[in-house]
């Protein structure tokens, strides 16, 4: 019997006991579906792979060859608990790569109907579960982080070319992950306005689908609050200072936008 078959009864037990579903055994308000769409931009323009040049706050002119990353542990926080509404939590991981549109959508079925005012997720994987071999599909995708460098998985691989000081062409590889075994994953909080005039469409109604667009501004990785000059960094998987700097910048790269915008 393979591992998957051995584990099936355990997973069923956990489901049946409600252990995996916390206290959501009754849902009198009904549930809807939430679709998260991942969008990648530079400033106000959609990200283009290859060819198109961008400029960061250090003045580096750069192009993007590859963008892939992992997000995990989504939470939707209700605006009010007056009528018994409860927060929603999902403890999984999701892989996104710019060159595969199918990965740019994450669907949550059975989200309790409510107005949600805040979203949390982890960019990368928190240390407690970022262990070697835990997510075979990330291994297959080339996202493993070598055990000798801390183990687990990359949070992000962002790669491309830039014009170095003095001209010509050079490469950058912004690889974020658990460098040296430290946890550089990035907790992200997105404030949402579920009911106001600037609402982002994050009210879930029973039986309906709500789409939320999570937008990454790629340039923000290199711009705020810390400048990141490609000339100063090469391969950074073993560079704790670079990981910490980008961890700070990572908190500001995300926003939620109106899917109809």
């Amino acid at each position, binding site marked *: 019997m393979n591992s998957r078959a051995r584990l099936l009864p355990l997973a069923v037990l956990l489901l049946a006991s409600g252990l995996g579903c916390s206290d959501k055994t009754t849902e009198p308000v009904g549930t809807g579906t939430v679709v998260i769409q991942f969008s990648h931009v530079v400033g106000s323009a959609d990200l283009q792979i290859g060819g198109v040049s961008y400029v960061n706050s250090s003045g580096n002119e750069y192009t993007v*060859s590859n963008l892939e990353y992992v997000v995990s542990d989504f939470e939707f926080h209700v605006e009010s608990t007056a009528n018994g509404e409860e927060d929603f939590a999902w403890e999984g991981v999701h892989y996104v790569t710019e060159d595969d549109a199918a990965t740019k959508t994450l669907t949550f079925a059975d989200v309790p109907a409510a107005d949600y005012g805040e979203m949390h997720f982890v960019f990368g994987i928190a240390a407690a579960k970022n262990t070697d071999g835990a997510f*075979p599909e990330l291994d297959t995708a080339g996202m493993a982080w070598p055990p000798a460098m801390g183990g687990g998985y990359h949070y992000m691989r962002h790669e491309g070319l830039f014009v170095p000081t003095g001209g010509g062409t050079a490469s950058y590889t912004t690889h974020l992950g658990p460098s040296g075994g430290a946890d550089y994953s990035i907790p992200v909080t997105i404030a949402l306005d579920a009911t106001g005039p600037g609402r982002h469409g994050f009210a879930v109604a029973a039986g309906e689908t709500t789409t939320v667009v999570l937008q990454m501004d790629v340039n923000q990785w290199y711009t705020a609050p810390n400048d990141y000059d490609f000339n100063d960094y090469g391969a950074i998987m073993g560079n704790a200072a670079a990981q910490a700097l980008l961890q700070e910048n990572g908190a500001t790269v995300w926003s939620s936008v109106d899917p109809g915008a």
Partner: protein
Amino acid sequence: MIVRWKLGIVVAGALALAGCSGETGPSDTPNDDGLPPMPEFPDNPTTPGGVDLGRRLFHDPVLSGDGTQSCADCHRQAFAFGDPRQFSFGIHGDAGTRNASTIVNPAWQTSQFWDGRAATLEDQAVSPVQNPIEMAADWSVVVAAVAADPDYPAAFAAAFGTSEVTQERIVRAIAQFERGFVSADSKFDRERRGEVAFSAAEIRGRDLFFSEEAECFHCHAAPLFTDGRFHDIGLDLDPPDEGRAAATGVVFDRGKFKTPSLRNVEVSAPYMHDGRFATLEEVLDHYAAGIQRSPNLDPVLGVQLNGGATGLGFTPEQRADLIAFLKALTDPSFLQNPDLGPPSS
């Protein structure tokens, strides 16, 4: 095994939680052999009859225009189902322009051929049969020839329920057979399972392989030792072969080729899409000091050239260690598996 059970519990818990949302994400548990769970193929589920039929067809020259060449003539088991010749020769003696790809753990791959122009093994199997410089056959003639064979109709009935012979059924059977090309019992696998120990050179080679210093692992990702994606590794400043761009039409894909698995790389010479390197030592020469900054050079390699280097600059000791590790990826049980060879009758 204790570690695996602990890991499994964590993953099972994640799956249980995911059940609340209807989205599992990529979490799953590895197989006992250390490979990821094999994908499912609901459009062409594997059956014993289908595998038996595919095995016979794979080794049968009836698929070629003059009945002289089978799939196995260019995809030879002893060479990881690759071809030891730089280029394969078709039934008319014509040479191709690329080295025949190895076939190692193809079930996990989401594209086929060096340029990925076929999405599935079924799609892949269509092409060589009708390629004029390969098997140069007409599919309708092939189907008729197979149907006329006294033994095949019963085999098709065993595989698909009726004895009807069609092109679609032929390629589906071959795909089922090829999905059984599973290599997961090399010394690397056995070391991971705690069954054997690496030598000092293999340990050094492994540590170098999985480091930014050598930059092997980002593309040759374990445990499949391929990421299944397309990269320009700086073989030519102006690539004469369009590579992936021939399939996509995208300039940015020019000179990119699918990452080959390094499993059984010891026996799969010559190397690269055009078989230009005869030995692993020549491959390492390229990475050590021969990388060209081609327009689409993969940044993972390109970042190593920042500042004017021409490669990763391996020392002789590092080369020896890397080759020791690469040879630990050889899987004799795969290369000699009688179930993958020609049927006995």
